[in-house]
């Protein structure tokens, strides 16, 4: 539909509008779920398992029930028939093994932190006090705590499944006809080319949104209302109805102000189900707000993969094949996206490159640890890390500049649209332009020169330059493709535009922002499309009673899919208005054109504003025959393709070779995210994303001890970066519009996170490669860097990687994050990244 296209003015789109959201947020007039107080409201506290794997023998609730102001104590056995279950939306294969997931464990706990009983009391403090009095008798079972143990399959996370493996999912370019046979390519490279083999570790991370999750359920109305600190109110409503038997029409879910998510609130959670259950059982409003420690232990984690990689290339550096084998830790249950997270990486390991052959295999395993699901990027950061580290290793192997090796392999800008070896069709991009701009901003040649000088003078502080040229697939997702992939829902998005009689405009979106600024950006888009003032547009969302259709916010989909629905709804408004205006102006519809908010008779000064037509539709005194008295528009949009933003990120790190300390000197990124609606908001997304990705490279890791207890269960131990840890960034853009969307946007929510992790690690390795180091396990703490340098120095030509792999007596992972206890470190990693490799 192109009704508005030729005459749309861009007054608002592209402007750095200050956000509408901010006035409330900076003055404290906020609507967090935990702010809600309802008459007679009760509070819930959870009793959580201290064991990673145990049978529940008995639960004695008598003492807790007698505690002051306790209203009820619930156990899983009591509510087994009515509590519903938590479902996964993505069984990746038809034979995927999926354990049942009751919100309150019934007879067995499967990770330390799982809820075994629930206390409901008149105050939160009383509920917590009474929770201490619940006496649970456990019979401990052997637990599966690492991917290696899961792979061995001798101890089982879920004994009744008979295996730890959930599913194996494969994409093979030869099989699907999108490329050659990867094994042949590798064999050929072993004879006549270069083979790079590596094993990389994607450590387990925790999303750590700043607002702890909170849920309030009020069962006293005609509908049961659930306020939830969630990214996905529509999915929560659907899943509640599907699993509890309460009709969907009797459930209203509201996501009020939500304090960050990053995928961490893209979940249907036990705690949400428990609050819903308790409120229904007791007939009174119930609230639960988690503590930070509970959040870290029971909110889903992210990443956690072992990546076994083989890259084949010719002697002059053209990549002929890539074989990827993943072990992915799902934790103890298949979460909402669950096994689909590693699968999302399948199309991204080949990234921006033209490889001849490719095979991707992921083996998804259950362990007795916190479940794992989407965390900013979900599958794509893992893929990007692997390929950007490998391309750098290939450059080092061939002794060429890492940018040169990329350029040799990437898709040239004149080759778009391009169908990749994984079978995705990239519509547009210009890797040359983004890279050229980034190199210039960075001062690439000067920094290389400085690096050379420092190496020659044997400076204690060495400089390294890290390159990451990434792409991602955004705009989840074409429903047709989701269907092919066995995903349980569509990927469309919905919007309504209500033209109010007084000329104001209400925009209803099915997306559910929690910091992204949709109110502002959607207002800008509608202001331009309908020619109404920015201030007159009100964006409504996050309440299933107002926004009745939606697929919510994740996967950089809101602008690319959600805003396209808004554009189409606006087109319908104009179409309807045209009919009425033609009648009022006594002109033919064909003679009308829509320009800057006015429907004008071509070649005359006769015309009506869209607001005047809205008023006429409201009066409905004189409408054309058959016209309904409304110019409101609705649209549900299903994308034809993903979008493929890309960018070039360059990072300079200084490494003190005497202490292993690293310092970020400079970070430049040039992202091509297509057309930009609000550059200020876009920059903010990039900055925040960068720091999350940098944090994976340098600081963050969820660490478990030998018994399966999360050691990093508070902000003392799970070290989020502070303002003092980070630097200011230089960000810029190039623009090649997306061809599948009318706005030309590609999405930006995850770009920074995806690209930055390999840029940082590449820079650190680059700083010390001449000392014999070719890998450092993330997070690259000073201790790990120091030990890698020492290991490298002791082995002459051999790499630190080989050295640690060969060190049979050495602890599995000698290096660790300095502030964790040594006992915990060993568990944190599967071992050094050793596998034989190098030139054959």
């Amino acid at each position, binding site marked *: 539909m192109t009704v508005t296209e030729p005459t749309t003015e861009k007054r608002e789109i592209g402007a750095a509008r200050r956000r509408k959201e901010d006035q409330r947020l900076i003055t404290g007039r906020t609507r967090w779920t935990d702010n809600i107080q309802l008459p007679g409201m009760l509070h819930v506290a959870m009793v959580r398992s201290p064991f990673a794997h145990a049978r529940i023998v008995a639960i004695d609730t008598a003492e807790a029930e007698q505690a002051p102001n306790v209203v009820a104590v619930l156990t899983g056995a009591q509510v087994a028939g009515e509590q519903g279950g938590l479902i996964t939306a993505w069984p990746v294969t038809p034979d995927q093994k999926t354990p049942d997931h009751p919100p309150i464990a019934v007879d067995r706990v499967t990770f330390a932190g799982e809820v075994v009983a629930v206390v409901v009391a008149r105050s939160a403090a009383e509920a917590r006090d009474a929770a201490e009095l619940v006496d649970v008798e456990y019979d401990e079972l052997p637990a599966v705590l690492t991917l290696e143990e899961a792979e061995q399959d001798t101890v089982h996370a879920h004994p009744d499944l008979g295996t730890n493996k959930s599913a194996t999912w494969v994409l093979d370019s030869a099989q699907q006809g999108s490329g050659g046979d990867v094994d042949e390519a590798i064999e050929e490279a072993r004879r006549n080319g270069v083979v790079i083999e590596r094993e990389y570790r994607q450590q387990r991370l925790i999303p750590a949104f700043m607002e702890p999750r909170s849920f309030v359920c009020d069962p006293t109305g005609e509908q049961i209302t659930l306020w939830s600190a969630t990214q996905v109110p529509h999915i929560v409503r659907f899943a509640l109805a599907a699993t509890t038997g309460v009709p969907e029409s009797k459930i209203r879910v509201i996501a009020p102000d939500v304090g960050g998510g990053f995928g961490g609130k893209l979940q249907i959670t036990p705690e949400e189900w428990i609050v819903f259950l308790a409120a229904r059982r007791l007939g009174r409003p119930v609230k639960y707000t988690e503590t930070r420690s509970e959040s870290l232990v029971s909110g889903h984690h992210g990443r956690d993969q072992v990546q076994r990689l083989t890259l084949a290339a010719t002697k002059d550096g053209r990549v002929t094949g890539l074989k990827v084998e993943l072990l992915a830790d799902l934790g103890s249950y298949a979460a909402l996206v669950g096994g689909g997270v590693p699968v999302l990486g399948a199309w991204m390991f080949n990234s921006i490159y033209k490889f001849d052959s490719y095979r991707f295999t992921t083996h998804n395993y259950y362990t007795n640890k916190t479940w794992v699901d989407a965390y900013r990027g979900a599958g794509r950061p893992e893929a990007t890390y692997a390929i950007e580290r490998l391309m750098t290793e290939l450059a080092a192997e061939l002794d060429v500049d890492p940018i040169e090796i990329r350029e040799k392999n990437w898709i040239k800008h004149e080759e778009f649209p391009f169908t990749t070896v994984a079978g995705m069709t990239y519509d547009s991009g210009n890797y040359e332009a983004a890279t050229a701009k980034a190199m210039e901003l960075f001062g690439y040649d000067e920094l290389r020169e400085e690096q050379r000088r420092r190496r020659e003078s044997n400076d204690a502080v060495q400089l390294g330059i890290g390159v990451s040229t990434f792409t991602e697939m955004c705009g989840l997702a074409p429903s047709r493709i989701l269907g092919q992939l066995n995903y349980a829902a569509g990927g469309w998005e919905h919007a309504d535009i209500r033209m109010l009689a007084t000329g104001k405009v209400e925009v209803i979106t099915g997306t559910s922002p929690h910091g992204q600024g949709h109110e502002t950006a959607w207002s800008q888009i509608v202001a331009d499309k309908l020619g109404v003032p920015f201030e007159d547009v009100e964006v409504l969302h996050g309440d299933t009673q107002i926004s009745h259709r939606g697929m919510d916010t994740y996967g950089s989909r809101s602008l690319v899919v959600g805003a396209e629905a808004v554009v189409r709804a606006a087109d319908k408004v104009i179409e309807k208005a045209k009919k009425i205006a033609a009648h009022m102006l006594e002109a033919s519809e064909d003679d009308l054109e829509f320009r800057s908010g006015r429907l004008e008779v071509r070649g005359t000064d006769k015309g009506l504003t869209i607001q005047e037509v809205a008023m006429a539709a409201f009066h409905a005194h004189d409408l054309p025959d058959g016209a309904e008295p409304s110019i409101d528009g609705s649209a549900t949009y299903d994308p034809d393709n993903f979008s493929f933003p890309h960018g070039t990120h360059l990072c300079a790190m200084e490494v003190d070779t005497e202490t292993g300390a690293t310092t970020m000197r400079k970070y430049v990124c040039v992202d091509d995210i297509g057309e930009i609606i609000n550059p200020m908001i876009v920059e903010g997304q990039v900055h925040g994303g960068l720091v999350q990705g940098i944090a994976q490279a340098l600081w963050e890791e969820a660490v478990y001890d030998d018994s399966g207890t999360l050691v990093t269960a508070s902000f003392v131990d799970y070290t989020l970066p*502070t303002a003092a840890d980070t630097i*200011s960034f230089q960000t810029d853009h190039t623009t090649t519009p997306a061809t599948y969307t009318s706005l030309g946007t590609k999405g930006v929510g995850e770009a920074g996170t995806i690209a930055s992790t390999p840029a940082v690690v590449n820079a650190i390795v680059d700083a010390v490669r001449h000392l014999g180091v070719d890998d450092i396990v993330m997070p690259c703490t000073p201790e790990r860097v120091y030990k890698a340098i020492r290991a490298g120095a002791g082995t002459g030509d051999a790499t630190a990687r080989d050295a640690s792999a060969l060190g049979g007596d050495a602890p599995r992972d000698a290096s660790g994050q300095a502030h964790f206890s040594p006992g915990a470190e060993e568990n944190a990693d599967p071992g050094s990244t050793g596998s034989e490799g190098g030139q054959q």
Partner: protein
Amino acid sequence: MARISVKVDGASYSDDVEPRMLLVHYLRERLGKVGTVVGCDTSNCGACTVHLDGRSVKSCNVLAVQADGHEVTTIEGISSGEELHPVQEAFRECHALQCGYCTPGMIMQAIDLLNENPSPSEEGIRHGLEGNLCRCTGYHNIVKAVQKAAGSDLEGAQQ
């Protein structure tokens, strides 16, 4: 129960509170000052930062009874009506917030920082905000906002 009298955002309150009640819970649950929020249970995040007699404190780290006889200023008390405090204004102008959860604490800490040192360096700002975590912004624009506020008249809008 202990009786406390405390001035919050210019108004006087007298209440009986449990001795174990934290100031942040008193503000949120008893006074409805929900602009101040809780982000952790280990005094690491700074989301709960308020001013006690003009200096920033983490209100999850102070008992309500310790505020007896003192004056508390929260995010809700630093501006009147539409007129924003210059630090609030700078946060909006520089896009120093996304979800806004850390923002009240961050603004209260930034005001304290600028009261101590009206023209801090970037490093000074970064160290001054070290006790306040933000997961959304990467701090880049928060630092810019504080720099911008440092260039404006703080005195005029102080309570």
